[in-house]
């Protein structure tokens, strides 16, 4: 075990997988950087968040490919390379740029296997930074995983800590299906213990981060540490909750959620997405469909409002579900029944 940031844990997974399997390639804008610059230094960026740093010097520019600003082409290339036997890890700097490349994601990679009679394999990993927290405004701050989760054929991953980031990225690269890998930009600097060597976290297995009795709290990515903050406060008053970190939104670990709900009878879902057709509404629906008998109070959903992400500090702070709102929702869910 070593303590490292989520950024370094992801970087470690990429290094290890590229070392292990020469079919793994990395492509995207500034994944290395410096090409055509006047300093003469390559790897000048190593990805705008530093996640792909060091890959070019180690593996060369045939396997670490800087691209022009052409997201549709980046994802399309990854798709074709995958069909031709490679295992591409493509990067979109910001999840919002899925907007530019969505055809290649939801009409192409997600559907090849099904449309082609089960004969295609498209082992693409599409990494992207997501979420608010940098005041990057409406076109650089969205979480978008609900949009990806609704697409059959895609697996969707949302790590909340360095160890899971490493284990889930390793799994994603070895997985034969297309994987959307969403890295919350406010978590890149989050530190934690990370297992040395090979570390895999299977998809569809949520993590029970904390155990408690009074309610079940389900959270995703940055909402996990926020929920922990809220729980720290409540635990001082003797209120304890199960905290479930979803880790992947597709496949969704229904079992862990329903089992916890059967013990607590109360459910709070914390989701940074907009509320309509969100993971929060999905999990509330799950509780209504399969956990109705256990529910002792209405499900509480803590989400962003139905607005784009605003710029100003005061507004972004209001927009993002924070520890205070999570705490209030837990108190609310405990009131009834």
């Amino acid at each position: 075990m070593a303590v490292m940031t989520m950024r370094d844990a992801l970087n470690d997974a990429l290094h290890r997988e590229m070392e292990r399997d020469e079919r793994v390639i990395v492509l995207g804008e500034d994944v290395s950087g410096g090409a055509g610059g006047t300093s003469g230094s390559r790897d000048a960026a190593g990805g705008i968040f530093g996640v792909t740093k060091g890959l070019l010097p180690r593996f060369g520019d045939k396997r670490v490919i800087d691209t022009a600003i052409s997201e549709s082409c980046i994802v399309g290339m990854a798709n074709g390379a995958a069909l031709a036997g490679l295992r591409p890890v493509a990067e979109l700097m910001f999840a919002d740029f899925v907007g530019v490349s969505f055809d290649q994601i939801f009409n192409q990679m997600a559907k090849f296997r099904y449309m082609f009679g089960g004969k295609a394999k498209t082992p693409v990993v599409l990494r992207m930074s997501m979420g608010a927290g940098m005041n990057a405004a409406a076109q650089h701050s969205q979480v978008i995983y609900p949009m990806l989760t609704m697409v059959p054929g895609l697996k969707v991953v949302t790590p909340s800590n360095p160890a899971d980031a490493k284990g889930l990225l390793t799994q994603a690269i070895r997985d034969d299906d297309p994987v959307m890998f969403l890295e919350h930009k406010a978590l890149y600097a989050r530190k934690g213990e990370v297992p040395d060597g090979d570390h895999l976290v299977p998809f569809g297995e949520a993590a029970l981060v904390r155990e408690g009795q009074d309610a079940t709290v389900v959270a995703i990515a940055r909402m996990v540490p926020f929920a922990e903050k809220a729980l720290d406060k409540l635990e001082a008053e003797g209120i304890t909750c199960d905290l479930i970190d979803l880790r992947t939104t597709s496949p969704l670990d229904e079992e862990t959620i329903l089992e916890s709900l059967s013990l607590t009878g109360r459910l709070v879902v914390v989701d940074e997405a907009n509320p309509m057709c969100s993971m929060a509404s999905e999990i509330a629906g799950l509780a209504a469909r399969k956990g109705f008998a256990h529910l002792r109070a209405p499900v509480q959903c803590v989400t962003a409002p139905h607005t784009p992400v605003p710029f100003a500090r005061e507004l972004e702070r209001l927009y993002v579900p924070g520890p205070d709102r999570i705490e209030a929702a837990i108190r609310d869910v405990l009131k009834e029944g």
Partner: protein
Amino acid sequence: MQQSPAQIRHAYTRMRLIREFEERLHVENPKGEIAGFTHLYAGQEAIAVGICENLDERDYIISTHRGHGHCLARGCDPRDMMHEIYGRADGLCKGRGGSMHIADLSKGMLGANGIVGGGQPIALGAAIACALRGDGSVSVSFTGDGASNQGTVFEAMNMAVVLKAPKVFVFEDNGYSEHTGASYGIGGDLKTRTEGFGIPVWEADGFDYFAVYEAARDAIAEARAGRGPVAVLATATRYFGHFEGDPQNYRAKDEVKRFREEKDCLMQMRRRVVEAGIFSESDLDAIDAAVIEQIDAAVASAREGPRPGPEIMLQDVYLDY
């Protein structure tokens, strides 16, 4: 130089305004009061102003993530822009957009844009509105060297030709697309690519206001006359990093210093204007001093500006819902 002294004064003032606005943001940014990504335009002033001095109020422009220069050249209020960049409730976009999304539709300014390549088809849409009005107006998109590789730009060029639209493609080659040199990302070259679509290209030194102005004047005259889309290709450099805080590892250490000393657009313009006897050094110094005062006032009021509250977050998602 066929422009009147009044025109030259106007253009010089706008260029100085952009320069001081950006230099000042570079100083203010590390103090921590300004949130988000700030992309500065300093170094490229002659391009935005050289283009926009050829426009009138019927025309449209659309900008990029590096939008302050285009906005100011189009006449957006520097005070209102500063308030926006500081995220104030009385900013040009109520603090919701910030540096990367400044827009002023009342000035035909269709917005800075955080999505590289997002603007060009939008500007083409405005161009077909211009054509329908039939008043000789035009629509201008600004496109960086990096953005020029986005598929939407090619699609917009093609459709502009097909529709013979009064669309002006301005390509600003500042040598870099974030951390990557323009020469790496661009296959072929911008001029022949654009000409490949059948769009005539006027090239200009982007450090030379008069060169850009004259290229744009001739190009835009074609578009106004209904002869279809045109392009202006201008080369310059950005003085600061891609965003404020960029360590610029991709760039030679003395690169900017050299450009500032040898090619700076304001320095060149001053020299030409003084040599031609149009203005004296002290006339220009007086303009500079007034601009600095204006920026001081804008920053001071932005710092004290009203903070946005929850109602601002919730308004304007729709007109009616």
